[in-house]
């Protein structure tokens, strides 16, 4: 520092930049920027341009006018809004009571609720959708039994209802997790103060607890809204096409890349998603209470009365059944011989697994390859951005972070369409299009999951306090040795968790994959499931693939959890001198 300060008067410009950026930093930043530009910003930008461009290249709103003149699109727009909103409502009905039980009461089934919160996440919703048809559909197990016993049926899976049902069951854990964390952060003395001043039970919940937990709820609810609004695979799987994402997909795949409607819908998807997130952020402004509370009384869980206990069980057990239904359904389907118009499959077989492993093993190997590579790319780019943001003063480093995070607001379908539009005419050595090659699919998966890896890397690097590096440098270690001996070992757990999370979520990505994967041989697992599920005879093998996908995700989720736990354990141990 002091050396460059002395040089400053002589060469002010150069000196300034020498203190702020080394060549390594600049090269790293440029490489990351080029990657994001090429595979995120330009493709999405292309989508926007096409949506606003007339045939001669001039700016126009005529496509949007067309959109709002077409009754099918208007209907799709309202349907998407309706489905997303109702999914939030139903997800909340499940998640809010569970979160209150989990965070506020000594409920013997706590472990069960925690499991409930993870089970849906390991099952990709499009896999669950098929199983839900078999359990709750018009001729599914539940309705056949209802017809036999009581002579009526429930149309849970018909049309939009089916999408709402499947999505609420899949996404309620987002609300559950955010709300539970938020509730746990409410200092117990906040509630005790309410009791001390005369408030009890429901008043306490309504006036003190829920308002304080509102930020967590809003964060979860807005996420659910956006995910459902943008989702392509679940409606397609349920044969619901009068929603926005399926309409865009159908336009691009059937009418063609030149048709502007796919792009217009993409723009609307992005705008509504960003608006929903922005609205949530606006509502949350000034309500980040967690930082305003002193002390922190930890979790203050109350005893349940006998009546309360019974009520809780009466809620948890049906929810458990609902949550497990797709898992059981897909398992039965994968082992079942024929399952049609009967409550259960006619017989059991291993044949579907045999079919999958014998005839289409590439789905599994492709997924391992693509998602493994995508996870690696994510960790490398994530760490690089985290390092640039936290440890350098490079101008524009925050912009890189923002650009990478913005992938969250881009639906997979939109990114897929953009990539297709941008790179379709770029030919590979064998004459195939770059846009539909497995390389591009891997890159797109990496871009889509980069935000997770980036946040995990940032958290991991944040926990390596600068003084730990300085201590090593003070002992005589150079930059490289410090990195190798101090920083990397301390970040390892966090990075492993980041890799596994990216890998597992990429393995069940279907929105962008549907747009980009064209050839069976190049397709990953999720696309394979989709293909199989298109025909009645393929449902068995499709379910077998689905079970494999669920297992992959479940194992990875467990592993990521373990990595994170181990890290936390190590950190708390090392910060506690008594246990040293």
């Amino acid at each position, binding site marked *: 520092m002091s050396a460059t300060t002395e040089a400053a008067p002589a060469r002010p410009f150069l000196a300034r930049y020498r203190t702020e950026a080394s060549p390594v930093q600049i090269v790293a930043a440029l490489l990351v920027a080029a990657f994001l530009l090429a595979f995120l910003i330009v493709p999405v930008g292309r989508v926007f341009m096409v949506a606003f461009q007339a045939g001669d290249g001039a700016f126009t709103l005529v496509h949007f006018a067309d959109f709002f003149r077409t009754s099918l699109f208007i209907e799709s727009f309202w349907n998407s809004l309706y489905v997303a909103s109702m999914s939030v409502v139903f997800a909340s009905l499940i998640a809010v009571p569970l979160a209150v039980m989990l965070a506020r009461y000594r409920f013997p089934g706590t472990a069960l609720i925690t499991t409930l919160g993870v089970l849906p996440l390991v099952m990709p919703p499009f896999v669950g959708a098929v199983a839900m048809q078999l359990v709750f559909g018009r001729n599914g197990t539940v309705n056949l039994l209802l017809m036999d016993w009581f002579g009526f049926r429930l149309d849970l899976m018909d049309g939009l209802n089916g999408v709402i049902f499947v999505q609420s069951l899949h996404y309620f854990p987002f609300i559950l997790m955010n709300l539970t964390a938020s509730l746990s952060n409410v200092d117990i003395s906040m509630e005790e103060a309410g009791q*001390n*001043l005369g408030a009890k039970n429901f008043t306490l919940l309504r006036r003190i607890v829920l308002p304080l937990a509102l930020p967590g709820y809003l964060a979860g609810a807005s996420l659910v809204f956006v995910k459902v609004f943008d989702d392509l695979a679940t409606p397609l799987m349920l044969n619901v096409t009068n929603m926005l994402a399926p309409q865009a997909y159908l336009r691009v795949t059937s009418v063609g890349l030149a048709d502007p409607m796919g792009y217009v819908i993409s723009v609307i998807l992005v705008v509504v998603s960003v608006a929903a997130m922005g609205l949530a952020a606006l509502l949350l402004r000034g309500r980040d209470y967690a930082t305003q509370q002193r002390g922190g009384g930890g979790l203050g869980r109350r005893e349940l009365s006998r009546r309360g206990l019974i009520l809780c069980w009466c809620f948890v057990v049906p929810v458990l059944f609902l949550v497990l239904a797709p898992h059981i359904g897909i398992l039965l389907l994968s082992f079942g011989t024929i399952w049609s118009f009967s409550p259960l499959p006619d017989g059991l077989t291993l044949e579907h697994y045999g079919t999958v492993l014998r005839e289409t093993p590439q789905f599994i190997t492709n997924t391992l390859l693509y998602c493994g590579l995508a996870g690696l790319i994510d960790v490398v780019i994530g760490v690089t951005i985290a390092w640039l943001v936290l440890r350098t003063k490079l101008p524009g480093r925050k912009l890189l972070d923002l650009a990478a995070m913005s992938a969250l607001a881009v639906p997979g379908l939109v990114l897929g369409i953009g990539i297709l539009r941008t790179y379709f005419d770029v030919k590979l050595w064998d004459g195939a299009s770059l846009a539909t090659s497995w390389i591009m699919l891997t890159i797109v998966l990496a871009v889509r999951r980069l935000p997770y890896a980036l946040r995990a890397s940032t958290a991991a690097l944040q926990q390596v306090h600068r003084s730990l590096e300085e201590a090593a440098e003070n002992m005589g270690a150079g930059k490289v040795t410090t990195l190798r001996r101090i920083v990397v070992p301390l970040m390892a757990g966090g990075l492993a968790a980041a890799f596994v999370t990216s890998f597992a979520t990429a393995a069940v990505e279907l929105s962008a994959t549907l747009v980009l994967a064209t050839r069976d041989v190049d397709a990953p697992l999720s696309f394979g499931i989709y293909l199989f599920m298109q025909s009645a005879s393929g449902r068995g093998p499709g379910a077998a693939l689905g079970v494999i996908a669920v297992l992959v995700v479940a194992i990875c989720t467990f592993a990521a959890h373990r990595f994170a736990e181990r890290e936390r354990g190590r950190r708390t141990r090392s910060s506690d001198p008594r246990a040293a």
Partner: protein
Amino acid sequence: MSEAGVDVQSVSFGYGATRVLEDVSLTVRKGEFFAFLGPSGSGKTTLLRLIAGFGQPERGRIMIGGRDATRLAPWDRNVGLVFQSYALWPHMTVGENVAFGLEQRRVGRAERDRRVRAALDLVGLAQFIDRRPAQLSGGQQQRVAIARTLAIEPDVLLLDEPLSNLDAGLRAGVRAELVELQRRLGLTTILVTHDQEEANAAADRMAVLHEGRVLQVGAPTELYDHPVNRFVAGFLGTANMLEGALDAEGFHTGGLLLPMPSGIAETGPPGRATLALRPQAITLLREGGALQARVLRAEFLGGHVRYTLEAGEGLRLVAEEPHLRGLAPLSAGSAIGLALDPAQATLLRQ
């Protein structure tokens, strides 16, 4: 104004196998400023929370205003607790925080507004009524917490370490304000603290708690002058603890014989005992003195100098001498005479 005293009768409490309170009994009189004093883990906050209704004693009773409150829910007690963390609700304004207890008591709107104002006036924060707690300083937040509690006109005011979250420079002033407020309202008040100076300065009477038991109850000077055991003597200020034997001649320790006041030896049988002697009860004599000592260490503390001395056969003593201009502290190794005032010594038999 206050109608209620608090009577704690043989209360025991624990979390599973961990004992927190063991057979605790004490009486807080009507209108009194009482302090629970003890180190962390002594059970003082737990006792305060039991009085507020947060937890049920395993044995014993808690009477508030002559009424058995042991089984009453926190919201049925009309006992005001000011939390250590203040526990102001961040989603409500200052005014809404203060009004909350009145709303729960179904106080009408006009009366409620009047009492919210009055409570905020009392702590001098009426102009902040529409602010959020986060926009106030720590000291102001604490006063809002007190106003919120006073607004419900509680029978008893409970203060859980009220000064611990304040900067050191603010504490003495806030403490004085608290005492002044309590005197003005005549409200039965219990203060929990680990700081003996805080308890001494604020309380009419106090109880010293240690490991879940009440060791001694009394006025601050009474406890300081006549501690019942080593712990109380050591916790309230500094004391030399001299181990030795007592007989008719006096107190034998470290090869020395210290004379005792005539009354003391008769209070119990001769035998081993501990003598507690405050540092200021040892007078340093530049010349003469019945006892001779050597200075081991001198610490200049501003108002006084603290000497560590050695007398007799390895007997360590701490003595304090007021410092005045021109009086140079004695250097280590100097010889010095001591005069001990037997009337200031406390004999502790365990």
